């Protein structure tokens, strides 16, 4: 069964073709990583919904071409409809509905964060229960997944997401956008002492990153060397994530952990996770940031569980996973 997955919830236009029968992703096209996308000076993210509208048919055709399938092979169309930037979401959602209507194949709406949660299992089947840690530019949360469709949010960020903290620290120190990869690279090359940065004290399994960000800004204003400053930031941010995850494992006694989202590409985080002594699932790099493959993978499983969605389903800017 060939499944299409569409995600336009934020900056990237992404479409994937997934073969559910063999559990293989046949193609996964992400606009910002593709050459047909115009140059944007390397610093400014493409946000405008208009850009999604310009990209989406090209991304769709490329996804079919790479997967070597034709539209008539598609048996299910899935798209992210929540949460995200409304005008952006609507481009992908409307496009997907159009394809579903035209081909007379079922349509399934997908929750973006739920898709991230399951992305570490693409190519295999999830085992339950597991603890999901989603770490990205827009989200930071720990979720207990009891089974498909049954979730308990154990903690979330009360202010900035961890990926956002990376971007803002990079901005403060003049390293440009996005902050994650460049700070990780500097951390790898840095071997000096570390500056002391405060670990935020937030009760339970919630997170806070704005205090670390402010501390970085104050130190930058006092002239702290950039490499030392951002390396110290990465050290404390990752150790904070690990502390919270350990606490969640202790509290729930669930020792199966799935980490996802753009920040799961971070090398120090991966290293620390590997030494946690849990059964760890982490997606290959291409499925860490927003992608259509996770939408197709989850959409197919939700379709089997709940059946198709009406084409009248709308887009939602905010939505908790339930």
């Amino acid at each position, binding site marked *: 069964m060939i499944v299409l997955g569409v995600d336009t919830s*934020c900056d990237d236009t992404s479409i994937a073709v997934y073969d559910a029968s063999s559990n293989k992703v046949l193609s996964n096209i992400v606009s910002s990583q593709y050459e047909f996308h115009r140059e944007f000076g390397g610093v400014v993210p493409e*946000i405008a919904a*208009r850009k999604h509208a310009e990209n989406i048919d090209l991304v769709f055709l490329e996804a079919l071409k790479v997967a070597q399938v034709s539209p008539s092979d598609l048996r299910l169309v899935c798209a992210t409809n929540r949460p995200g930037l409304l005008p952006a979401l609507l481009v992908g959602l409307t496009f997907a509905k159009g394809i579903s209507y035209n081909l007379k194949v079922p349509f399934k709406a997908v929750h973006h964060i739920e898709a991230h949660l399951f992305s570490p299992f693409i190519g295999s089947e999830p085992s339950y229960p597991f603890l999901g840690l989603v770490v990205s530019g827009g989200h930071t949360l720990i979720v207990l997944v009891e089974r498909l469709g049954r979730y308990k949010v154990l903690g979330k960020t009360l202010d*900035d*997401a961890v990926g956002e903290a990376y971007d803002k620290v990079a901005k403060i120190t003049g390293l440009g956008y996005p902050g994650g990869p460049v700070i990780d690279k500097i951390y790898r090359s840095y071997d000096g002492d570390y500056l002391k940065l405060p670990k935020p004290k937030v009760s339970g399994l919630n997170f806070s990153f*704005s205090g670390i*960000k402010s501390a970085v800004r104050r130190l930058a204003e006092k002239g702290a060397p950039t490499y030392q400053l951002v390396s110290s930031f990465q050290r404390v941010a990752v150790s904070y994530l690990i502390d919270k995850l350990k606490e969640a494992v202790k509290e729930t006694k669930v020792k199966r952990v799935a980490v996802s989202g753009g920040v799961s590409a971070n090398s120090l985080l991966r290293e620390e996770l590997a030494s946690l002594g849990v059964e760890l699932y982490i997606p290959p790099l291409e499925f860490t940031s927003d992608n259509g493959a996770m939408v197709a993978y989850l959409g197919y499983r939700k379709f089997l569980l709940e059946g198709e969605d009406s084409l009248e389903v709308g887009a939602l*800017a905010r939505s908790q996973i339930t």
Partner: protein
Amino acid sequence: MIKRCTFKTKSEGETKELGELLGKLLPEGALLVLKGDLGCGKTVLTKGIARAFSVPEEDVSSPSFNIVHEYPSFVHIDLYRLSCSEEVYDLGLEELLSDERVKVIEWGEIAGELLENPIVVECKDKGGERLFKIYDPEGKICGKLKELWRERCQG
């Protein structure tokens, strides 16, 4: 009519209290622009404002990445990632800006003329203390807010 006023807070808790009092004084459809450096307390103040609209403060996080966070009675917008006012139109924000909900906008400078007569709050981190300077073109907020802030200190 007082158009300008300044408040000093000594903790996150106090900043939230100030936000809540301010939130209660905002008229329907008000546009409030928050200015100031990264980490000066914009999101914390917004958590307080959210309280005035019965939005649980733990539900209010930074909208930098998602740009818009909508709640039933108020909208939290962050234009940090935008680079020109054209993008503001592309996002369809002008529709959002004209509804009856109160809008709190971080990094609103980029929106330029789209924001008509906003109430502006500028924050500064003074090493532990935070200063919030309010500029209210209609002069309807400062007088009352100063009164409420004083009462709170005495009570």
